[in-house]
């Protein structure tokens, strides 16, 4: 059965590219365009993995991550942060909150992202 991946990303173009790439790899993609929707869908859809952007309108990615980790129904889902915040403090903060990996968008190609996702879902 195809694994479900929730992508929480406000930039429609970036979200579309990742969706296309991962769909082609056989994953079932669920999209959320802001933090609130992300928290809701993480709880309702119980995806196998979450790709989370950090700079989001209203509720930012750090808060989304904290909320997911507090949610008994969603806290076991691995979360990969997918952001362009590249400062050490941001990376440390994200990892401390329980992310399994931190991908800096401008430094990774879609293929590399697919590899990371596959490695975690193995």
């Amino acid at each position, binding site marked *: 059965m195809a694994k479900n991946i929730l992508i929480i990303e406000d930039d429609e173009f*970036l979200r579309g*590219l990742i969706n*296309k*790439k991962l769909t082609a790899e056989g994953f079932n993609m669920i999209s959320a365009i802001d933090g609130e929707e992300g928290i809701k869908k993480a709880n309702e859809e119980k995806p196998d993995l979450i790709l989370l952007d950090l700079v989001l309108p209203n509720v930012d990615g750090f808060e989304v991550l904290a909320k997911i980790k507090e949610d008994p129904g969603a806290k076991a889902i691995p979360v990969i942060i997918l952001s362009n915040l*590249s400062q050490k403090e941001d990376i440390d903060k994200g990892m401390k909150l329980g992310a399994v990996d931190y991908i800096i968008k*401008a430094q990774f*190609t*879609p293929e590399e992202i697919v590899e990371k996702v596959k490695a975690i879902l193995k």
Partner: protein
Amino acid sequence: MPKIFLYLLIIFFISVFLVSLTVINFWLFINGSAKLIYIIAVIFSFAIFFAGSCFFIKINDLKKEKTGLGHLLEKNERKFKNSEIEKNRISEVFINFNEGILVVDENEKVSLINPRAKKILGIKAKDIKGLPVMDLGRLSDIKPLIPHFLSLSGALKEEINLRNFIVELSVIPLIFEEKNMGKLIILRDTTRESLLEKTKADFILSVVHQLKTSVSSAKWSFKMFLSGDFGKISKEQKDVIERLYKRNEALIYLINNLLDAMKIEEGVYFYNKTLVDIQDIIQSVIVYFQDKIKSKKIKIEFKKPSERLPRIMIDKEKIESVVQNLFDNALKYTGEGGIVRIFLETDGKNTEFQIKDSGIGIPKDQQPKVFSKFFRAANANKIETSGSGLGLFIAKKIIEDHNGSIWFESEENKGSAFYFTLPTEGVE
């Protein structure tokens, strides 16, 4: 003084007249033609005259003294007036000074405070002279400052957030002839500056983030075109997209460099040090540049040390970016068929890296500026127009923050050699 001389002359003549009168009378007395009483009378008048003269001279001296004293008094009065003016002037400066000034005496009591300091500290009471500093905390919301006011350490400078102000606090001990006279406390209101700084930094970060989102979407799109995610592409389309991809990568590199340079200026450039084998870094950088090396037919020689060097405590990513930057420069500014030599050695204390090219070199007159921000040599600009002039600025910062040093030797049209050393402390 001619008047005095005239008096003295008169006194002299009268004396001569009286002396001669005495002599004549004495002579007449010896001859028996004058009586003794005459002589006594003359001598008596002489004595009176002498006493009078002395009295006159003394009076004259006293007069002189009096005028002297008068002058002195006048001079003192003038001095006093001047010091009064000076005092008023200093007091005006003190009152109207745009920075808060507070002087605390040796018993930790307020000795002087200007209106600006009162405003910053939110003190409404009129006269607080003599009030213990400890009690100031009760007057307003300046509790966070009190420990600094009382601190025993030497001069200090710190930024502190108060309710309505952000204050830069300077505490300067007042020591006079080795005696503690209390402290001078200067309160500078930096509220506006801090807000502006923050707005500026937030603005730049937001722009950088938007730029990064754009370059990321371009990067992902190009890569997906190249891997056929959007269908088959022609050879020409592939070539163009490959070039676009490289341009975009250069842009990402530039944005990261700008962000790094900004962080360096702000003093918030952090390192994540682990034990690293520097030889691995060099080898991975050579692999990274394989395409460029092949396309320019450049010969690479890596002279490795006879045995593996011990691992050193460094920030792997940042040192790798330094090696990458030096390698990139060597390849960029060396013509086709040139040679780039890399040396790695250690003397036990330091690990030394050297990269030597047969490229265009750096003109002598521009060599002192090589490590400054945004600098690019004129001959380098001709060969490669893109380049931010940030790479070596950042490299120097990184190496120096690792307690190492970086330098170069270069001759125009012959080539350049860049060196850096890193201390081997913290080895396995």
